[in-house]
């Protein structure tokens, strides 16, 4: 860290260096691109973990979190502009591929234009939307943006703001699809896209040449809603983001608030949280492999995993009272104590799971058709995984050891024995197998904990009204699809200034175009299924 500070201070005297939770660099926009180049090429920060748009009232800006994937150091960079009429910042899409989709999100919400970004269109909202909803002065009157029932126009051209000489910006038209290209529209309502994703796909015969991604068909504006609620009130939204990692997402938000409050969570609650997370992971992977196989035509493989999933849902339901949106974690611990039969139920599950996994492998994994459909399809290299910020089973199937439970351990994970599943093929088969192995590891964790649940409180003492001090906090956890991050910025008071859910699915969706180029159109289904994104997690 000291080294990093020295290098930055020497090369960029105008950068303001702040020591906080992570090292923070404050740079003027003019220097940002060259700082990013230095950070990436000389200092090894090769992964853009999060990119967060911000509105501080007088200033608009962006906060970046960059990770060095060999040392797992994190650095935070803040770039701001005072121009509210036509704010412009420099893009870093040429350095980090994932920035392409992140920056479009910021443009959509805050109206910040990124110079040299190849495609400055809205991402979630209709292109005839009026205003930028995340700005603090946004006009929320429903008459400005009524529910429109006409179909929006689809564009084949987009704009880009190119810097031709320092300080000189030129607006250019960029073609997305040429008139000769044959474009097939897939979605938003298509059974194989795993939710409401829309892909405009250019094909040459059966080969995909380009995919243009349309998001926002389930964009609920959760982050904006959070800004008007108190911290305990924001919790229930996390269950509805990636509803298959409900417990884990909520765990992340609770951890982030607890970090801000400096709150010690009782040991019993910590153990319960980890057990719930792992149960959730197994159930999510079960559904993931089930629906994936169904998309490939293996309907039996949908029913087998769902059978085990129901067993897990029963366990969760006995304790929490719900099958999907559990509302179980709370700030300081968990809301209710375990069901008296919880331990016995988990033990029963641990008996069933190895047999079930053997069965899945017998039914499907060794099947020659499965191999033909999945081997070598949608290969993602390790470098690309970092570049596109594809974490979770997808990243690990490409050889990137990115399990947050190991890299930035939280809760009691550092005390537990389990292996990080890393494979090196990077294809759809590897992603499928990684999920199966992860279920085995989750069972291992559960087996270690099931007899070790300590007695004690389930929730720490928390003040009636939760007020966070001024500041910002970023917390990541390993959700079922990858690293899920929560960013909270507070100006003091009981409501956040900004909450950002940095979801893994968003980055996975950003990699679809890259992964499918040159593949056959039938493989689009395989690739989408193997990435296993959940669309409300992408759209938020």
């Amino acid at each position, binding site marked *: 860290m000291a080294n990093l500070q020295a290098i930055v201070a020497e090369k960029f005297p105008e950068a303001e260096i702040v020591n906080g939770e992570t090292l923070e660099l404050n740079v003027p926009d003019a220097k940002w691109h060259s700082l990013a180049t230095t950070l990436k090429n000389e200092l090894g920060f090769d992964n853009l973990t999060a990119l967060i748009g911000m509105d501080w009232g007088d200033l608009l800006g962006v906060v970046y979190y960059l990770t060095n994937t060999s040392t797992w150091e994190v650095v935070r960079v803040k770039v701001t502009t005072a121009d509210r009429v036509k704010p412009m910042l420099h893009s870093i899409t040429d350095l980090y591929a994932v920035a392409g989709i992140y920056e479009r999100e910021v443009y959509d919400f805050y109206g910040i234009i990124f110079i040299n970004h190849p495609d400055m269109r809205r991402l*979630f*909202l*209709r292109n005839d939307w009026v205003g930028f*909803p995340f700005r603090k002065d*946004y006009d*929320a009157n429903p008459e400005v*943006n009524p*529910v*429109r*029932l*006409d*179909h*929006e*126009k*689809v564009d084949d051209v987009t704009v880009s703001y190119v810097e031709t000489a320092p300080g000189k910006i030129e607006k250019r038209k960029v073609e997305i699809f040429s008139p000769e290209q044959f474009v097939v529209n897939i979605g*938003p*309502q*298509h*059974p194989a896209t795993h*939710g*409401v994703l829309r892909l405009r796909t250019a094909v040459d015969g059966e080969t995909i040449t380009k995919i243009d991604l349309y998001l*926002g*068909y*389930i*964009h*609920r*504006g*959760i982050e*904006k*809603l959070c800004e*008007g609620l108190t911290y305990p009130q924001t919790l*229930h*939204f996390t269950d*509805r983001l990636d*509803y*298959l990692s409900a417990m884990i997402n909520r765990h992340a938000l609770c951890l982030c608030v607890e970090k801000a409050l400096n709150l010690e969570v009782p040991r019993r609650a910590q153990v319960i949280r980890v057990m719930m997370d792992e149960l959730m992971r197994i159930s999510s992977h079960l*559904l993931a492999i089930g*629906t994936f196989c169904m998309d490939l035509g293996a309907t039996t493989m*949908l*029913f087998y995993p*769902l*059978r085990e999933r*129901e067993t897990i849902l029963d366990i969760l339901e006995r304790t929490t009272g719900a*099958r*999907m*949106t559990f509302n179980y974690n709370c700030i300081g611990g968990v809301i209710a104590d375990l069901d008296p039969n919880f331990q016995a139920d988990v033990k029963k599950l641990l008996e069933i799971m190895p047999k079930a996994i053997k069965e899945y492998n017998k039914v499907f994994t060794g099947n020659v058709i499965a191999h033909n459909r999945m081997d070598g399809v949608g290969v993602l290299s390790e470098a690309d995984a970092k570049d596109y910020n594809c974490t979770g089973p997808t990243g690990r199937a490409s050889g990137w050891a990115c399990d947050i439970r190991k890299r930035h351990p939280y809760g009691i994970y550092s005390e537990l024995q389990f292996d990080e599943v890393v494979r090196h093929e990077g294809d759809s088969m590897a992603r499928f197998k990684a999920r199966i192995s992860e279920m085995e590891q989750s069972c291992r964790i559960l087996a270690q904990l099931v007899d070790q649940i300590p007695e004690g409180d389930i929730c720490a003492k928390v003040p009636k009204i939760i007020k966070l001090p001024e500041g910002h906090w970023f917390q990541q956890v390993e959700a079922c699809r990858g690293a899920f991050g929560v960013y909270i910025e507070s100006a003091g008071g009981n409501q956040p200034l900004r909450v950002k859910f940095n979801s893994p699915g968003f980055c996975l969706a950003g990699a679809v175009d890259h992964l499918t180029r040159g593949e056959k159109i039938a493989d689009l289904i395989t690739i989408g299924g193997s990435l296993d994104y959940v*669309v*409300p997690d992408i759209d938020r």
Partner: protein
Amino acid sequence: MEVTTKSMPYGDWKDNEYIEGMVNELKANGVNVVVGSLDKLINWGRSNSIWPLTFATSCCGIEFISLGAARYDMARFGWEVARSSPRQADFMMVAGTIVHRMAPVVRRLYDQLAEPKYVIATGGCAISGGPFRHSYHVVKGVGEIIPVDVYCPGCPPRPEAMIYAIMQLSRKIKVERFFGGVNRQEKQQDFLKNHPLDKMAD
């Protein structure tokens, strides 16, 4: 008059007054409520094989998958033929939040369904916007853009509740002649007149 389905005794329904009230109202208005045998036969067939259009946008949709799997097994009732094309489906199970960008798509799918068509609004989101009601981008209930026949509350509703909702729909279909038939059609026409499609862009 007892309107029920085969799998549910009449006394077990929670809201018989509603359906009786409707029948009485129609009777009072002079509508002939005696169903002809042919009508009965047709409705018996229709109400026992209503095919859903898979239309799941979010969390509620996952419970719909559970409904199709072995434990809740909707095949028992003849609803398991979930269609991906609106041309082949009888009703639309709107499961999940409907947002502004999705609204025209929902409307188009509804328009593409072949008559007779029905809609079940599943979950708080589809009914009223649910937890996201105050968002700038959420439609406050799918009833704002298409006519709804059955509301199924919950967040998400349990699969059992979905079964109840679909059975409720098949009960309504059974008496289609009086409050499905003429009257319902009129309501639907009224609805579409009051919610015109704006000019089509493509």
